[in-house]
């Protein structure tokens, strides 16, 4: 049996490698798994057989049969797997061979040999032999496949490298020659992709190999074909380019331009090259040389083009002024010259064209000569006419200009060729320029002179501007200046006439008054006489200026008068202002600087002003009386409750008004008024002070009665700060009233309320401690309510409320009630001392401190008579706190004591059962055995009781607990008897049985035990333990 499993192992090994190296059909792996499972089963069965004793023959036989069955099965599976593997290997061998046939040209000798050695037939022999042979074949196949794959990869990669070079050359050439191509770089990249594809799988994959090989071959062949096509095209292109350049270079050489030597080309026909790459490299070098040579040629031609073009342009511009030039024949000259980017042949064409046009222009020049000459003659004639005209307008023309004109005229008669006539033309233009400058300069100077003369005369417009470019235009400008001057004389005369008329009007107004000026009248008359004699522009300007000055001086004289009258008026006005804020006549006289009136108007103003002065004194008196009446109104506006303080002021005012009505002079009025106002002011301040003091006093009265008066200094200061400004008494009074009502009274009221509330709280606190302060609380609450509820409360009301409150809290009866309570508490605390002493074991110092504290409290209570209510209340609260602490200590002590007792009792056997019996039968237990519930009740009461009564309860509880502590051991002794009676009855017995048995037990108990409590307990315990009722 052993050989078979080694064969299976071998087959399995083979299958594994097939799976690893080849693509397998569906089901192959499954077959492997089945074989593996079966093998495992076999080895398990063998294990079992080995461990089965030789004596268990039947089992062994059964196992052996199973093993045989499985082994047969395994062999079948292995054979199937082997067949399948062989089929796969052989088919792969055949495919690889077929592939090698197709690519024999690229395969290495090693690969070829390896493929030849591959076996195409399945091996013969038993399973193991076959499997081993197959394994060898598979590995040989794998090896051969990898050799072939490497060959293919090398082949592709080599081709890719040199194709890539050639593609680069193609691209560069095509750029230089501007020639299109269909050689793509992407095809080269694709080759790289193909190599990568081959490396994707480590398994034998002939299909991929085949597809990669044939793809690569297609790409390589196609690229080579395209590059070769391109090479041929380049050859043609280069030849034709070279021909074109040589043609042009020989032509321009013939035209006399210096041409560099033609470059030597190296590339032959591509057919003469062994590889296309070398050809492409030579072609590239030729292309570069040609390109350089062409650029040089272009530069030479372009230089020449530019120089011819420039000269042609100049000639054209000159000739066309005098003769008709056919511009159609000058197409190159009139166009802009070409740039360096133009093609060589284009440049050459332009060069040729320009040379042709150069010839045409020289022909035109001959034709233009006669017309140029006659033109220049007429120009010289025109210039001499203009020169004479200018001299008539006083323009000074230099002699050399007239001399030159004559010389040029003579020259022109003699001139023969175009070049000379062109020179003459230039000179004539120079003379024309000189004449024009002379005329223009004179006209500008004249205008400047006129302009300076009329400065400050607003009625005259500026002289006309001198503009233009020609001699003729400037002469026209001179003429217009002359015309402007005659117009200006007329205008100025009209102006002077107007001034004279105005002055005469003013003089008429003043006639007969002290302000009439005879000298002014003489001047006016002289002006009137001179007016008719004015002829020149200069005289007109001077006379105008004289009239203006006369008017100005006369007006100023009048204004001085007005100013002095105004000053006098203002003096009186000042007095009025001192006395009263308002004076209805102030607006009449403006300051002289503000007066913008004509001479006649100013004269009228003087007359008006003298009338106003007369009205002035009456207005002053009326105004002052009115002022006094206004002060009176203000005083009467003070609120009624403060009015009394200010009443006497009214009499002073009435008296003054009376006196003012009888006063005569401004001085008298002023004296009277000033004194009255001064008196009034002082009296008002005094009354106002009196009023402030009154308010402050009321407030201070309340503060005095408060225990803790509020800080009103700010309000007081505000009141003190208040003063009467500009007779505004009502607002000052109102301000004080506001401070009193809004800032002081609410604070005072709040303070009174808070003080009262504090006492209420204090009394309520005392009440809570059990002190009978009810009646005091009621009356203080009443006072509090009255303060809170009264809407319009005054300081006096608050003062009264304070008095009431103070009376209540200082009441002797109140104190005695509190003292009584405090004394009772002290007594309770003293009684607590023993308990606290017990607690000393935990806090040794406490008892001492406790005793000290009690004596301190007692001392404090004795001092109650000398304490204020607040302090008393504090002490009461301290006593209460102290009591609460003491109480909590006592309670804690008691709880601990109870707990200690409970713990002590719990240590005793059966204690739980005893308490269980109690819990189940409390009432009867309490009655007959021990009043245990009573302890619980007292404990409850102790917890609830706040006052000193708690001490009594504790004493009671202690007694009971002590008794209970003694009672428990006794009961436990009784309880021990329970088990004597319990045998023979169980909790699971029926109620009936239990009840019957219990009755028997109870009878026994009654017989044996004499004491009622023992009997009761035992019965209760038995009933409880048995769960009866």
């Amino acid at each position, binding site marked *: 049996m052993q050989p078979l499993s080694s064969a299976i192992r071998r087959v399995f090994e083979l299958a594994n490698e097939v799976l690893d190296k080849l693509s397998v059909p569906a089901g192959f792996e499954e077959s492997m798994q089945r074989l593996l499972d079966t093998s495992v089963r076999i080895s398990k069965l063998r294990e079992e057989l080995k461990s089965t004793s030789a004596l268990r023959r039947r089992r062994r036989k059964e196992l052996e049969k199973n093993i045989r069955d499985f082994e047969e099965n395994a062999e079948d599976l292995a054979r199937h797997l082997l067949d399948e593997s062989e089929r796969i290997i052989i088919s792969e061998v055949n495919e690889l061979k077929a592939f090698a046939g197709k690519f024999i040209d690229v395969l290495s000798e090693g690969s070829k040999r390896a493929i030849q050695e591959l076996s195409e037939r399945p091996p013969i022999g038993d399973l193991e032999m076959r499997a081993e042979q197959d394994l060898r074949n598979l590995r040989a196949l794998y090896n051969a496949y990898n050799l072939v794959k490497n060959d293919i990869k090398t082949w592709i990669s080599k081709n890719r490298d040199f194709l890539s070079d050639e593609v680069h050359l193609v691209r560069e050439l095509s750029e230089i020659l501007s020639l299109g191509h269909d050689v793509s770089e992407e095809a080269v990249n694709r080759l790289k992709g193909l190599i990568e594809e081959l490396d994707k799988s480590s398994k034998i994959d002939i299909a991929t190999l085949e597809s990669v090989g044939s793809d690569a071959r297609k790409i390589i062949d196609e690229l080579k074909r395209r590059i070769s096509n391109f090479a041929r095209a380049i050859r043609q292109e280069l030849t034709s380019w070279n021909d074109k350049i040589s043609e042009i270079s020989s032509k321009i050489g013939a035209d006399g331009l210096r041409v560099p030597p033609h470059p030597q080309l190296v590339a032959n026909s591509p057919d003469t090259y062994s590889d296309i790459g070398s050809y492409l490299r030579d072609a590239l070098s030729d292309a570069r040389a040609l390109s350089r040579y062409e650029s040089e040629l272009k530069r030479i031609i372009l230089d020449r083009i530019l120089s011819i073009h420039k000269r042609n342009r100049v000639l054209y511009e000159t000739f066309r002024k005098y003769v008709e030039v056919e511009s159609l024949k000058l197409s190159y000259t009139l166009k802009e010259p070409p740039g360096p980017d133009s093609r060589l042949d284009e440049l050459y064409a332009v060069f040729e064209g320009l040379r042709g046009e150069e010839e045409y222009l020289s022909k035109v020049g001959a034709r233009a000569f006669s017309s140029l000459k006659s033109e220049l003659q007429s120009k010289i004639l025109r210039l001499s006419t203009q020169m004479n005209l200018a001299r008539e307008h006083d323009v000074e023309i230099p002699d050399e200009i007239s001399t030159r004109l004559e010389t040029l005229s003579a020259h022109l008669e003699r001139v023969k060729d175009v070049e000379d006539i062109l020179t003459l033309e230039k000179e004539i233009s120079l003379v024309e320029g000189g004449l024009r400058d002379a005329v223009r300069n004179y006209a500008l100077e004249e205008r400047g002179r006129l302009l300076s003369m009329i400065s400050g005369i607003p009625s005259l417009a500026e002289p006309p501007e001198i503009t233009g470019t020609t001699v003729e235009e400037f002469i026209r400008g001179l003429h217009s200046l002359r015309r402007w001057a005659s117009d200006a004389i007329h205008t100025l005369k009209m102006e002077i006439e107007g001034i004279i008329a105005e002055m005469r009007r003013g003089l008429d107004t003043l006639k007969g008054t002290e302000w009439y000026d005879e000298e002014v009248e003489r001047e006016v008359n002289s002006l009137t006489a001179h007016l008719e004699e004015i002829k020149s522009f200069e005289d007109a300007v001077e006379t105008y200026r004289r009239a203006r000055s006369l008017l100005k001086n006369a007006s100023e004289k009048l204004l001085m008068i007005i100013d002095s009258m105004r000053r006098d008026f203002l003096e009186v006005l000042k007095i009025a202002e001192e006395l009263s804020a308002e004076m209805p006549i102030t607006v009449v006289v403006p300051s002289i600087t503000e007066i913008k009136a004509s001479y006649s108007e100013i004269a009228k103003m003087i007359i008006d002003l003298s009338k106003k002065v007369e009205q002035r004194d009456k207005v002053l008196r009326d105004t002052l009386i009115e002022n006094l009446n206004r002060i009176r109104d203000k005083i009467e506006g003070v609120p009624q409750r403060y009015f009394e303080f200010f009443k006497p002021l009214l009499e002073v005012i009435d008296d003054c008004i009376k006196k003012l009505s009888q006063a005569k002079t401004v001085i008298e009025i002023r004296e009277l008024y000033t004194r009255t106002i001064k008196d009034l002011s002082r009296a008002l301040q005094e009354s106002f002070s009196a009023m402030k003091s009154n308010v402050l006093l009321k407030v201070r009265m309340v503060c005095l009665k408060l225990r803790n008066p509020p800080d009103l200094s700010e309000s007081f200061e505000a009141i003190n700060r208040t003063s009467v400004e500009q007779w505004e008494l009502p607002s000052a009074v109102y301000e004080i009233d506001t401070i009193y009502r809004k800032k002081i009274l609410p604070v005072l009221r709040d303070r009174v309320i808070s003080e009262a509330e504090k006492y209420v709280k204090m009394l309520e606190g005392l009440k809570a401690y059990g002190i009978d302060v009810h009646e005091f609380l009621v009356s203080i609450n009443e006072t509090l309510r009255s303060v809170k509820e009264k809407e319009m409360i005054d300081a006096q009301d608050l003062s009264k409320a304070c008095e009431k409150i103070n009376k209540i809290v200082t009441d002797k009866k109140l104190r005695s009630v509190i003292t009584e309570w405090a004394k009772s508490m002290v007594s309770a605390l003293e009684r607590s001392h023993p308990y606290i002493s017990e607690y000393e074991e935990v806090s040794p110092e406490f008892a001492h401190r406790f005793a000290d504290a009690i004596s301190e409290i007692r001392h404090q209570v004795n001092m109650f008579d000398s304490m204020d209510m607040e302090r008393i209340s504090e002490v009461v609260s301290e006593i209460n706190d102290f009591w609460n602490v003491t109480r909590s200590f006592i309670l804690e002590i008691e709880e601990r004591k109870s707990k200690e007792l409970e713990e002590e009792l719990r240590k005793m056997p059966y204690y739980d059962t005893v308490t269980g019996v109690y819990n189940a039968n409390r009432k009867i237990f309490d009655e007959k055995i021990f009043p245990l519930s009573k302890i619980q009740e007292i404990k409850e009461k102790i917890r609830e009781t706040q006052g000193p009564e708690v001490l009594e309860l504790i004493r009671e509880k202690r007694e009971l607990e002590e008794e209970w502590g003694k009672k428990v051991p006794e009961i436990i002794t009784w309880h*021990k008897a329970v088990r004597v009676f319990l045998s023979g009855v169980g*909790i699971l017995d029926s109620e009936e049985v239990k009840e019957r048995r219990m009755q028997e037990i109870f009878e026994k108990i009654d017989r*044996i*035990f*004499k004491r009622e409590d023992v009997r009761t307990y035992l019965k209760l315990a038995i009933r409880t*333990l048995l769960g009866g009722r």
Partner: protein
Amino acid sequence: MEEMEEKVPASSVFLLGVGECGGNLLGEYINAERERGRMTRVSGYLLLNTNQMDVIKARERYHIPPENTLIFGDTPMGVGGRFMEAYSLVDTWWDTIADQISSLGGDVANTFIILTSTGGGTGCGATPALIRQIKETFGKTRRVYVYVAAVLPFEGQSSEALNTTWLLYKLMQEPTSSKEIADLVILLSNRTMLRRRLQHDRRLVMDIIGASLGVDTSDYQQIEKVLKYTGEVSSKALEKTFIDIVNPLIVQTLIKMLELSTYAPDKNIFPTIDFADLANRLDIITVPALFTDIPYEALKDERGNVDMDSLSAFLEEVVNVTVRAYSLVDIGDEPSASSAFYILSGPQQFTDVHLDIPIKRALGSYLAEGASITPVFVQYKQRNMPMDLLILLGLPKLEEIREIMREAYQLISLHSGSKVKERWFLKSKGVSREVFIDALRELMELFDVEESEIELSGT
């Protein structure tokens, strides 16, 4: 026997714990004595076993010094159920065992108490051989008594029941025909305690057990430990826990019995009796019942006096409850014991001979007609001593023994019928089937088992 009684002035007791159960009982006893601070009641002790592990465990658990233990035999695993192996090993190893007993003070003892289980291999097999050898070696020059405190097996362990049958049979042979008989066999039953335990209400049982064992019933952990095993846990675990509780009870009983063997100035035993005397006053098989701490103080009136009539009436009740609820083997309603012995110990003023009347009156209902009752009063001068009552009932008709016999019979039947089947007896027990049949037949007579119940003639 009568004449020999005079020659024993005082007991000197040597304890032997045999087998695993015996070893544990011995350990418990030693520990209990140690707690009292002295070991006055016994002159020495030895733990014997064939199982090495059991010895080591017992040493560790009870802090027994190595010189007080002995492993005999060559198999460290012990003899298992093959008691006959232990039986023969005692003879082979006797010289060594005897040397060790002597060195531990056994050479001067006149009473040997063997603590063992009746069902285990080592204890069951070794006990008869030990009795013979002790009597032969140490009884050459004086009269020695050998008592056996034997723990009966749990219910449903038929192999152990078979061993028990053999041992009881061996121990009760006629003295004339065998040297392997015990002077007194004190029977103790795990199964009784267990049954009671399960029958009663937890709280009530704990009350009783707590008081009997001196455990505090308020220690809930301990109660829980016991109660935990009532429902879902295996009976094996329950047994283990229960043995932990029952063993101290057995030890307490032992201590109470040994009270008779010691003297103290403040103690008076009336009438004077020696521990060894017990064997002379009782039938060979006895069942103990112990009530500790009799609450006589509950009878005190307000002035602290106890009314003697009340006490008498009360003691009658105590006797009833002791026999019914506190016997270490369930004795049933009518045990019809052939003899009885009781010890009432307590303070001198209450433990008085006139209490014999009510006790005897109460005990009467559990005895066969004409059975003798031997009273002993142990009076202490201390006033606060607890009052305890130990009752030993001689040869009661025990239902439990009958059950054991039935179980043994079933096992015998199972292995009967062919020679091949019957070979089992020799193989796993070391004795032939016939020996068991003989033993069973004898015990049936002793414990009034009807022939119709077990048809031995048929087999």
